[in-house]
């Protein structure tokens, strides 16, 4: 990398140039985040008529609740399954769409469409397909002898939300994988082909390593997505049930804060969630990135 840097003479111009961005980030990210931290030290009734500063009581209540650790475990399983499934499928689809095929542009466009579907709508769609008794897929499963019932079977419910959440993210991953694949020089692959390497070998020894920066980036994005943005899907499909089988951290924040009107407790959970996501991202950058070949 070149060490030459373009520098500005004064201080005013660069400050003015980054001011809008900083304002937006400050106003919409740091301000609410600090508010959450502040609220997490308080206990309030729903109407805000009485507020009490309780120091770390909300956190203590959280960390002494065995249910919270279970929710954390559920979230980890959910995030790993969603990220793994959507990355795997997207990579497969991208590798297929990257070849010279008739109407390739059409396939590529169609594969991107699901990204425009809102999470709640994706939830409704999967709800229709998998509703016991009425959904097409659910009926098919029943005919095959699988007693499909996500209303009572926690594993079924988990499979359902994972499928919906992963499906929704495949398009996004596909887009990046496709761009990554197209950036790999054809000459390298052709050379390997001439040397007698088959398609599978070419993929695993050349394409996959060269694609690793994209894969790494997507892994971070997908984990954050599964942790924070899948609320709508869970709310529409399972409401965190049955039992607490699909209650993830972000869904619990909603349940306690919005339905339960326990602002302090749910603020404490948000702060913990924030810390976990920051921590995971940091770990990924520190350890996984080392093994990425740029």
């Amino acid at each position: 990398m070149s060490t030459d840097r373009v520098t500005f003479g004064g201080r005013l111009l660069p400050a003015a140039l980054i001011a809008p961005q900083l304002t937006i980030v400050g106003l919409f990210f740091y301000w609410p985040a600090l508010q959450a931290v502040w609220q997490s030290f308080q206990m309030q009734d729903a109407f805000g008529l009485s507020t009490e500063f309780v120091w770390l009581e909300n956190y203590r209540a959280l960390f002494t609740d065995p249910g919270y650790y279970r929710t954390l475990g559920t979230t980890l399983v959910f995030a790993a399954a969603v990220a793994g499934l959507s990355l795997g499928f997207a990579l497969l689809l991208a590798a297929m769409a990257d070849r010279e095929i008739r109407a390739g542009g059409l396939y590529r466009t169609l594969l991107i469409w699901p990204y425009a579907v809102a999470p709640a709508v994706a939830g409704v769609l999967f709800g229709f397909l998998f509703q016991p008794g009425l959904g097409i897929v659910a009926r098919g499963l029943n005919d095959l002898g699988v007693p499909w019932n996500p209303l009572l079977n926690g594993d079924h419910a988990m499979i359902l939300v994972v499928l919906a959440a992963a499906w929704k993210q495949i398009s996004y991953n596909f887009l990046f994988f496709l761009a990554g694949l197209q950036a790999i020089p054809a000459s390298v692959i052709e050379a390997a082909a001439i040397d007698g390497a088959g398609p599978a070998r070419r993929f695993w020894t050349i394409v996959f390593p060269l694609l690793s920066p994209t894969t790494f980036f997507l892994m971070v994005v997908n984990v954050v997505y599964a942790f924070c943005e899948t609320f709508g899907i869970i709310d529409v499909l399972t409401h965190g049930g049955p039992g607490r089988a699909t209650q993830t951290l972000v869904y619990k924040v909603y349940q306690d804060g919005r339905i339960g009107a326990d602002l302090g407790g749910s603020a404490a959970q948000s702060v913990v969630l924030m810390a976990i996501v920051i921590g995971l991202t940091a770990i990924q950058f520190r350890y996984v990135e080392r093994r990425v070949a740029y």
Partner: protein
Amino acid sequence: MAPTTTIRITLAALGLAAASPALAVTELQWWHAMTGANNDAVNRLAEEFNAAQGDYKVVPTYKGNYGETLNAGIAAFRAGTAPHIMQVFEVGTATMMGAKGAVKPVYQLMKEAGEPFDPNAYLPAITGYYSTSKGEMLSFPFNSSSMVMWVNKDALKKIGLGEAPRTWPELFAAAKALKGAGFPNCGFSNTWVTWLHLEQLSAWHNVPLATRANGMDGLDTTLEINGPLQVRHLANLAEAQKDKTFDYSGRYDSGFGRFTAGECPIMFGSSGSYGNVKGAAKFDWGSAPMPYYPDAPGAPQNSIIGGASLWVMGGKKPDEYKGVARFFTFLSDTNRQAALHQSTGYMPITKAAYEKSKADGFYDRNPVLEVPLKELTNKPPTENSRGLRLGNLTQMRDVWAEEIEAALAGKKAAQQALDEAATRGNAMLRQFEKQATPR
């Protein structure tokens, strides 16, 4: 009350005073959660009231479903812009009551405004839910429903039943027969799982759901949902779930379509589903009271209501309160109540309106609409059947449902599931108590 809130309310009041010129029509904001035909009914009521007098103008605004309306009201109150009248569902009652200073009790409002108001004119089974233990009415009942058993009469005929089962043992037997008569996936089912299998079950059998008269007498209430009756009932359900004599349809009311689609021949649901059933069911249908266990002493008692009431928000001007009081008097008018009841299917709130509908022969033509009224007025309410006042009930219902689901899935025994539901619920009650009473 926090000083900032007082200042905000004062400022809001001053702002309003400055903004409204003398002799102008006073606007009264009414936030509600009614959709479809019920939304039309709300708008019609406001129009009629506005046309009937010239001093006040009621402005109804739809604010989303019950939960969203409550949240919108709470947020508005925090910002000092609360509406005058807010429609709150019955499970939000304790939340509203706990907010002293945020709400204006209806009995006080009517007294201060000098409106004629006789609490005894209203059906006690309905107003009891919204009154203090001394009988002081806190909010004004608006739309009330109860839980009934919707039945597919064509299906019952197939198994040789002329009328709906009256007891739980009869119902389980009928459901088993129905399963073999073309309904393999669902003998019977229900919506609002905790409302039926815990709340109504307890009231209908005159057993407590919680101490202190189900929370009516104080915040220091603890749950008794793990009593012998509730445990026995849940165990029966879990057993029936195994072969789909009973089939679970989720926590809320999204499973109701299984009845109208003909998949479940018996479905428990709100009496407010009347319009839905009438429009969608392609078979001969009817409704019947909830079943009971015949060996339970005194059963059936009376059912408890669902639906919503109108809360008057605090911190408004006396003149505005006068207008709200006049609006409530207007709503209580016998002819208006009877018409509202007959057009929406919700229950009338005054005794006179009920008597009038009877005299009109309305129930001879629409027997289905009298079923919830008969359930509600079956016997004079007791401590166990007057209503519920449990803080954080919306979320607590989810917690109870989680444990019921575990029992139905065979993961926990009925006793264990309800014990844990009680333990977790009690923790939430203590949390609510702590938040509601400043130390």
